[in-house]
Every structure is written in C-alpha cells, then in structure tokens.
C-alpha cells in the first residue's frame, strides 16, 4: 500500500462512528428523500443538485404561495 493510501486508510479507521439508536444506516454515503435511505449511486449527486437548485427558488416560491393564499382569501371574501 502506498503512503497516501495508507494514511487515508489509517485515518478512516480512526474516525469514530456515531451510533444512532433510531436509524439503521447503510455503509458509505447515502441519501434520504422521505421514502427511505438508500446508498449513493451514480445518479444521486445529480438528484441532490436538482434539489439544491429548486431550493434556491425559495423566495419566488414563497411569493407564489402567498399570492395564491391572497387570491383564495379574496375569492372567499367575494362569495
């Protein structure tokens, strides 16, 4: 084993794993979306990037949501 890989392996062994009493986690990187936890595969990073992009529309989404609520209130008030 070369030096860098050896150091990485040693570091990995030294990292203390945190145990969660209410969560059964697979080994390695994983992702959760409300339908369970699955290991990270080749599509995961793309899916997460889409999530990050859509989150960044928050202010616009909030305004749309509030506009919709206002429209509903006006419609109710006019009934």
């Amino acid at each position, binding site marked *: 084993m070369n030096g860098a890989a050896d150091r*990485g392996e040693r*570091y*990995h062994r030294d*990292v*203390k*794993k*945190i*145990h*969660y*009493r*209410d*969560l059964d*986690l697979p080994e*390695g*990187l*994983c*992702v*959760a*979306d*409300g339908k369970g*936890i699955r290991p*990270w595969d080749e599509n*995961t*990073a*793309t*899916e*997460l*990037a*889409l*999530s*990050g*992009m*859509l*989150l*960044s*529309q*928050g*202010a*616009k*989404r*909030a*305004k749309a*949501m*509030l506009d919709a*609520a206002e429209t509903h209130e006006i419609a109710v008030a006019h009934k």
Partner: protein
Amino acid sequence: MKGFEGFRDSPEAPFYRAGAMSAEATWTEVARRLARILHSAAAEAQRRPGGLVAERVCAWHRAIFLTMFERDAGRVRADDEPVEFGVPVRIGEELREVPIRGTLGRVAIMHELRLACEVFNASVAALRDCERSVETADGVEPAAALYSSILRTHPFVDGNLRAAYVALTVGLASVGLPAIDFRPVLDRHDECLGWAMRNDAHQTIDPLVQLIVELML
C-alpha cells in the same frame, strides 16, 4: 440536465445568466458543477469529518460558480453590497413573507461564518466523544444550525442557498448521516427556514431538524 424544467431564477438575480449564454444553459452548468461538488465534499466529509472553516464555505461557492460568474464566485459581499431576502414566517394561522437582511460588512460576514463553523465543529466533536448511541435529531441539529446560520448571514451576492446546501450535506455526512433530497417537501422546507430565521422569541431550529429527521426515518 433533466429534471428541473420548472426552475426559474429571477431575471434580476446576479446569477440569472452568464454572458451570452441562455439562462437555461447557465442553470444547467451550475447544476452540473453543484452535483460534482456535492459528491466530492460529502465524500471528503465522511473520510475526514470536522474541522470546517469559513474559507471552505467560500471555496464551495467559488467551485459552483467559477465557470459562469468568475468575478463573484466565492467572493464575500463588500461593505456597500447589502442584501435582503424573504422567508415565509407563520404568525398565528397566517403565513407572511418577511424580509430578512443579510449581515452587512465583509468583516462581520466572515466573523459570523467563522462563528457558525466553530459552533458546528464543537457540536460534532461532542457527538463523537459521546460514548452512548444518540438520537438522529442530535446528529442533525449541528448541520441544520450551520445551514440556517449561513443563510441568515447571506455571505454572497447570489447563490447562497446552493452553497449552504453543500454545507448542510457536508454537515450531515460528517456525522455519518445521509444527504437530503428536499424535492418532495420544498414548501415545508421554506416554512422551517422561516422558523429558524425569524427575529422574535419564537425563533427555533427545531422544525427544520424535525423535517430532516422525518425524511430519514
């Protein structure tokens, strides 16, 4: 990149489009780079957890936007660049969009980023030293607090949520927890941020922690 056809950035946003590129092509390139950074940063965090510094947050922002917006990528807002953004805040039964001002002044921004990183590092170290098993919420809380702190500070002229989302993913990976795909709960995510960022006695990180835990369990 397929899957975010519904994405529409504001045309007034500094990162709406890059040079002669179309807005759609700009967003596709940003999403492609964000995907790469999410993967590399999460893998690195799991290999070497802890030790987060403010400069790392700036480096993620730079890496996401470097090819599109070289001038502002990773650049903390200057003293004469104020920023204001809206979050939905629940007041009684009503949801109101409340304006929040990002921290003003480069020195103050870096101070708050460093503080957020120090709090995160200390919380993660305490979790690692814990001899007993812990609740998932205990593991989620440091990353959620870091995410909320970065967003409240709003260090950059644009792209704050994308950089903060990398920090959240790294924060969770640092304590062995999964990354979160928020797409099924975007509106609820926003409301949880509202609770975390409101400036009154009702301010709390708990709804955001609870939402993340729910998506894991």
